[in-house]
């Protein structure tokens, strides 16, 4: 309870203990993943067999480290490519959407806004299969009519980007809209009165104001794409992004190389998180 409200010592003690236990629960899985990346054993399990850097630097099987594991390294590259593409297209559409919803009034605006939010409540697997089904329908139709195989609409990286873009756009739109709402339109009007063109206004006033939100939305989109599993699983072809590659490894039986990858992921996303907090602080 509030500090200003009297409550019994036992209640306070129990409450603090509960909060502490919660943070232990929160930290436990990540801590063990990080620690077992250094276990000199073929399995990420007890007992502890001494520390090693082999799961990072090891050059040959069975202790093949991440920096020499070409299969996993390639999947990281695939994930990066997918995430960059998804981020770019999502940001472009999200910026348009933000201007549309914040600056314009038109009949059916509310309905369109609700539709724009729906991807948030469609389970990822279903989003994936519906895109899969629809793109195959088109590809089959093209093949039957023109006897030409439209390769891009078959499972593969293009489809993965399309599927992720379908829902990441919504999240990016929400982030950018929130920032645009705070913008004082009279700044634009003043610039226009002083003779600036619409393009100049956009370039020198509006976009710089939106920059923190664009960076923030970009980071969120990138991370969501990088770690997406459900939608990707349904659309993936022969090139597997990292999450899919790790999932396949996990089903075959795990080795601490997965811990090493996970630790690198934690460091990477931790860095991005710090960057986004830094950007947000600048925004205020």
């Amino acid at each position, binding site marked *: 309870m509030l500090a200003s409200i009297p409550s019994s010592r036992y209640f306070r003690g129990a409450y603090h203990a509960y909060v502490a236990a919660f*943070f232990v629960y929160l930290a436990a899985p990540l801590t063990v*993943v990080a620690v*077992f990346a250094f276990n000199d054993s073929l399995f990420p399990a007890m007992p502890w067999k001494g520390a090693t850097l082999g799961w990072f630097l090891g050059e040959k099987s069975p202790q093949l480290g991440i920096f020499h594991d070409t299969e996993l390294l390639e999947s990281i590259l695939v994930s990066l490519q997918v995430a960059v593409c998804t981020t770019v297209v999502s940001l472009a559409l999200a910026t348009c959407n933000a201007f549309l919803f914040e600056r314009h009034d*038109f009949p059916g605006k509310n309905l369109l806004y609700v539709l724009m939010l729906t991807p948030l*409540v469609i389970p990822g697997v279903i989003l994936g*299969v519906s895109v899969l089904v629809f793109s195959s329908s088109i590809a089959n139709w093209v093949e039957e009519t023109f006897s030409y195989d439209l390769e891009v609409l078959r499972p593969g990286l293009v489809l993965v980007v399309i599927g992720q873009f379908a829902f990441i756009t919504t999240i990016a739109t929400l982030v950018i809209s929130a920032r645009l709402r705070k913008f004082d339109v009279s700044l634009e009007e003043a610039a226009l009165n002083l003779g600036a063109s619409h393009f100049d206004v956009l370039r020198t006033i509006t976009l710089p104001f939106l920059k923190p939100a664009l960076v923030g939305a970009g980071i969120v989109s990138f991370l969501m794409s990088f770690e997406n599993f459900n939608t990707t699983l349904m659309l993936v072809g022969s090139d597997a992004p990292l999450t899919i590659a790790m999932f396949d490894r996990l089903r075959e039986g795990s080795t601490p190389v997965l811990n090493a990858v996970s630790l690198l*992921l934690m460091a990477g996303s931790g860095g991005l998180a710090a960057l986004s907090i830094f950007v947000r602080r600048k925004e205020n």
Partner: protein
Amino acid sequence: MKPQHFKFGLALLLTPILLWLTLLIALPHVDMALISLRERVSAGTYAFSWSNYTAFFTEPLYWRTFARTAVMSIMATALTLLIAFPISFYIAKVARGRLRPLLFLLCLVPFWVSELVRTYGWMILLRETGVLSSLLQWLGWVDGPVEMLYQDATIMVGLVYTSMLFMVVPLVSTLDSLDDSLIEAAYDLGAGHWRVMRDVVIPHAAPGIVSGCIVVFMLTLGNYLTPTLLGGKDSLWFTEQIYTQFITRFNWEQGSAFGILLLILSSLIVWIGLRLSRQSFTKVMS
């Protein structure tokens, strides 16, 4: 701006969003619904049929998995709310000074990491040769190794863990906007802890509670990784059935029917939730 100019700009902005919603959201789902309503007669020929839906209702494995997924998702949502509420209250109302942003940040950190890594962490903790099993043996509380994976309770731990952030964030932000003096006034007027919770705090936090519950429910219902990895072969999660129909058995007609059923279920439960709590979808989701 001149009206002519304005209209052109509007059309320019409307085109991409309409293309996106039509081509990537609306039409794919319509197509999926159509495919779910057909049956393969012979190679290349299909006929209209309800058979994919009747198969769902006549095969106990299918509808039991469906019901099980729904019930476990509701339970996971309730449990997440129950665990997250005191934590959010602590962050928003009890913690002082620097501790507040720090604790909030600590809640966010695990969720910057991929869900796969989080689930994997639980596997290392809970498996037979895992950390917890070894700890219990070392303490002498159990005689041999204990297998904690592949049980419903384990799936629940993983699901709650995975969804925690999506409950804590909306709760903290709604609780943050509640003026402390309202709580103090309620105490001054003689209300006890529970009374203040019931009549002041919870009504104020209702939008946050609803939005948290909707997001957590959706994520749990559509989850694939956690039940598959923590539940093992017999985890029986409905998204797994969808995956099996599509990818393993290549029966897209049946898979589409499952997809539509899951979509109907999730929309229905979200709708009921909004109705019961009298919240609006646009307000809660943005």
